[in-house]
């Protein structure tokens, strides 16, 4: 990959992604229906049509799929963004401290990460969600807690390299404490790397959320998300295939765009001499 | 009769008009003869020989002609090249550590071209490989066959490379700096070995090197390259004794010698090879040449035949016979 500032592919992916996000946020306002509103005018399981403004059709309860798909998207994207933030905070804190302090603490933290890597994590999340109830908040934490391991490893590696640089030595000489150095000098220099890994984490997190919702362990009715909609749609696909196809298409396209973006960012990072992944 | 004749070989990047890496290389090599191509690193000598077998780096365009026993090699398809690769032309690379496959046994790497080109079975190819290892003076050959490259010393790896290159009894051996990555004592042994193999296998040898010391021992003819262009070509013995090109003179003076005053400063050629400065219309060595005159910066010297070869220089040999000043 050449270190272009932005390649055409990347710009196209960004633009398309912006469209999806804008549609998800703004779209529901343009429909006459609300997210869990049932249209009693005799349009159960209606095919997509312009007549009643059911652009994506309705499900078997007569709810408008256009609105539901976009509302579900709001939840999916929200969970994705917040959980990514959680995993980012935990991962960066852990990685930066381990990498900067080094020694015993580093050994211990990385040993913990190694052990955690070997655990069947999705099953823990499932158990967590079942046992502690399906709060949105818990979902952020549970998913974020699963995904910080990669981030911690990468950040640690980069911090180890940073520690040897002159400006860190200068900061140490000027009498800053370790925590101050980590906050003011190490973390800001990790920014590019962290941004790229956040972009890589985002689709993974959205995938986990929709996985849980698909199993009925994610968001609870009346709220919905793409995973929950796909689950509903899969039940009724022999009668109303559109109830499966629209949410499935939205989820897949969003994930595809995010993966495309993450890949390009990663290629750019490694071509600039950062750690390849 | 010439075995290999290269005519105006040019290699340059596909997507730019930047200075070519090799610019108009021409030479002929007769059957049973040996030619050394000498030049400092970056002079394009490695890419030149790689392109003979279609192995030049990605993104490079090769033009000109190279005929091996009447077969045109430049621009030939892989299926055509495979007729000569490994069977009629063998090749040895600079760094035996990275040029041998670390995942395959020595026996496999020596024998595989026999299996492919001669249709030998695995057992037969191993028997031949055993003889080849003996030929390149590897002791305990039977055990070595089953070992992996990382279990061998550097000199031994290069011997294995030689054995693999000679497996199908090629007529021409191309050796790209075969001794550069090795210790001085091992270098010595390898040069001796190469000379013996040249005789025993009736090889024609194309040797790439930047070590003038090796040249006189192994090759009857020498070609000096600078910045992708030929400076002069001629009989090795004569060229080393009485060079007719300022660059060759400078190279010879820059050699460390035992018979000079050890406290005297080493001679070094002033300046450095900078491709961006090379003009297609001037002598490429002019900016670093002690004898350069106005003409050298304005006109690229045409080939001038001399008794035993060719030289590319505007100054007459007698004018540059002594250092100025």
């Amino acid at each position, binding site marked *: 990959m050449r270190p272009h500032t932005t390649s055409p592919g990347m710009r196209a992916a960004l633009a398309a992604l912006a469209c999806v996000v804008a549609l998800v946020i703004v779209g529901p306002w343009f429909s006459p229906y609300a997210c869990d509103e049932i249209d009693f005018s005799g349009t159960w399981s209606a095919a997509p049509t312009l007549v009643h403004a059911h652009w994506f059709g309705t499900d078997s309860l007569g709810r408008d799929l256009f609105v539901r798909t976009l509302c579900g998207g709001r939840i999916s994207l929200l969970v994705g963004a917040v959980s990514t933030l959680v995993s980012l905070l935990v991962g960066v804190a852990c990685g930066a401290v381990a990498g900067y302090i080094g020694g015993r603490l580093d050994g211990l933290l990385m040993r913990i990460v190694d*052990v955690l890597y070997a655990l069947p994590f999705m*099953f823990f999340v499932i158990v967590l969600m079942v046992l502690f109830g399906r709060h949105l908040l818990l979902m952020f934490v549970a998913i974020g807690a699963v995904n910080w391991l990669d981030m911690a490893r990468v950040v640690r590696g980069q911090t180890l390299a940073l520690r040897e640089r002159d400006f860190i030595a200068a900061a140490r000489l000027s009498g800053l404490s370790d925590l101050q150095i980590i906050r003011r000098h190490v973390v800001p220099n990790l920014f590019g790397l962290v941004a790229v890994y956040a972009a890589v984490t985002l689709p993974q997190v959205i995938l986990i959320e929709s996985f849980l919702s698909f199993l009925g362990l994610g968001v609870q009715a009346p709220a919905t998300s793409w995973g929950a909609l796909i689950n509903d749609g899969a039940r009724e696909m*022999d009668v109303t295939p559109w109830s499966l196809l629209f949410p499935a298409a939205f989820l897949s396209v969003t994930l595809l765009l995010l993966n495309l973006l993450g890949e390009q960012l990663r290629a750019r990072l490694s071509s600039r001499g950062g750690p390849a992944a | 009769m010439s075995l290999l004749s290269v005519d105006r070989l040019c290699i340059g990047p596909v997507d730019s008009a930047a200075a070519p890496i090799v610019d108009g290389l021409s030479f002929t090599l007769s059957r049973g003869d040996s030619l050394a191509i000498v030049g400092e690193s970056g002079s394009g000598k490695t890419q030149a020989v*790689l392109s003979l077998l279609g192995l030049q780096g990605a993104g490079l365009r090769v033009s000109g002609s190279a005929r091996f026993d009447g077969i045109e090699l430049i621009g030939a398809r892989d299926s055509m090249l495979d007729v*000569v690769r490994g069977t009629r032309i063998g090749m040895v690379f600079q760094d035996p550590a990275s040029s041998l496959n670390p995942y395959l046994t020595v026996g496999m790497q020596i024998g595989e071209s026999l299996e492919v080109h001669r249709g030998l079975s695995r057992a037969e190819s191993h028997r031949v490989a055993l003889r080849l290892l003996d030929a390149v003076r590897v002791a305990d050959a039977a055990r070595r066959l089953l070992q992996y490259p990382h279990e061998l010393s550097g000199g031994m790896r290069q011997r294995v490379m030689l054995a*693999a290159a000679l497996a199908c009894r090629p007529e021409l051996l191309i050796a790209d700096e075969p001794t550069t990555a090795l210790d001085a004592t091992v270098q010595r042994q390898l040069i001796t070995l190469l000379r013996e193999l040249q005789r025993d296998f009736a090889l024609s040898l194309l040797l790439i090197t930047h070590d003038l010391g090796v040249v006189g021992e192994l090759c009857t003819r020498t070609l000096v390259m600078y910045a992708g262009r030929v400076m002069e070509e001629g009989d090795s013995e004569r060229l080393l004794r009485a060079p007719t090109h300022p660059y060759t003179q400078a190279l010879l003076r820059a050699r460390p010698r035992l018979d000079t005053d050890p406290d005297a400063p080493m001679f070094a050629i002033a300046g450095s090879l900078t491709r961006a400065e090379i003009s297609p219309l001037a002598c490429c060595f002019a900016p670093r040449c002690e004898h350069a005159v106005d003409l050298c910066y304005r006109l690229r010297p045409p080939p001038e035949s001399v008794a035993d070869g060719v030289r590319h220089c505007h100054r007459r040999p007698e004018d540059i016979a002594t250092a100025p000043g």
Partner: protein
Amino acid sequence: MLAFALRRLFAALPTLFVLLTLAFFMMRAAPGGPFDSERSLPPQIEAALRSEYQLDAPLWRQYLNYVEAVLHGDLGPSFQYEGYRVSELIAAGLPVSLALGVCALLLALLVGGAIGVLAARRPGSVLDHLLMNLALLGVSVPNYVVAPLLILLFAIVLGCLPAGGWRHRDYADMVLPVVALALPQIAYIARLLRASLIDALAMPYLRTARAKGLPEHLLIFRHALRPALLPVISHLGPATAGLMTGSVVVEQIFGIPGLGRYFVQAALNRDYTLVLGVVLLYGALILAFNFVVDLLYGALDPRLRRT
């Protein structure tokens, strides 16, 4: 080699122990218990039940009891399925899940590998671009989207394959679940192998092999594939984990009586022992695969081999 294997095996034991402990206390820390239901039981019956399943002992006692039982190979009685031991339930579900998972893994390696090789032969060609864009799509479309779509297409529209079920020795039943489970891994492995194969084809020793005039299939399969396989081998551990996760939804969608479906049911019903048993088993399987990965590494790379 044997010493190396034993050492690795020992290193895995603490991880399993951590897994067991973590899972045990997490389950007990959760509100609600296995005998909560819509209809509350009379107190004495519940007490009798609690005592029968040893839920009335102090927590540390329960933990020690459980650890001891596990060390003896007993995963305890199921809370949900009366009269069944967890080991029996696992023995019933595991072969099904294993058949599904192993088939999917083999398919992923074969097809993903083939796609990776095809794409790496001519990097930047039309075929390469086509295959890699498809693979990126494959990575992006999760199992639970692929599975219903496959059913929609092959079972409902075309009607050529069954939409679900798992009848004994009926291989047609296996096709759709295996494909749905394998697709994301096929795509991932294809991308992984393409990248590493392109790297391997640029190694100096490949130039040596080309100079020998070897045909392309030998260049790829004898000289380049081995080093290129190493990242794929390392991915086997995560791939196994991914297949296990995927099997949960795939078994649900196709109505396959495997471990994944048990697991979700058990978690929903707070069947402590069954959930713990399945988590332990999955943990052990992942560790086992990582162990196999180490051994394969040694087998592939002679420099890592020890005598």
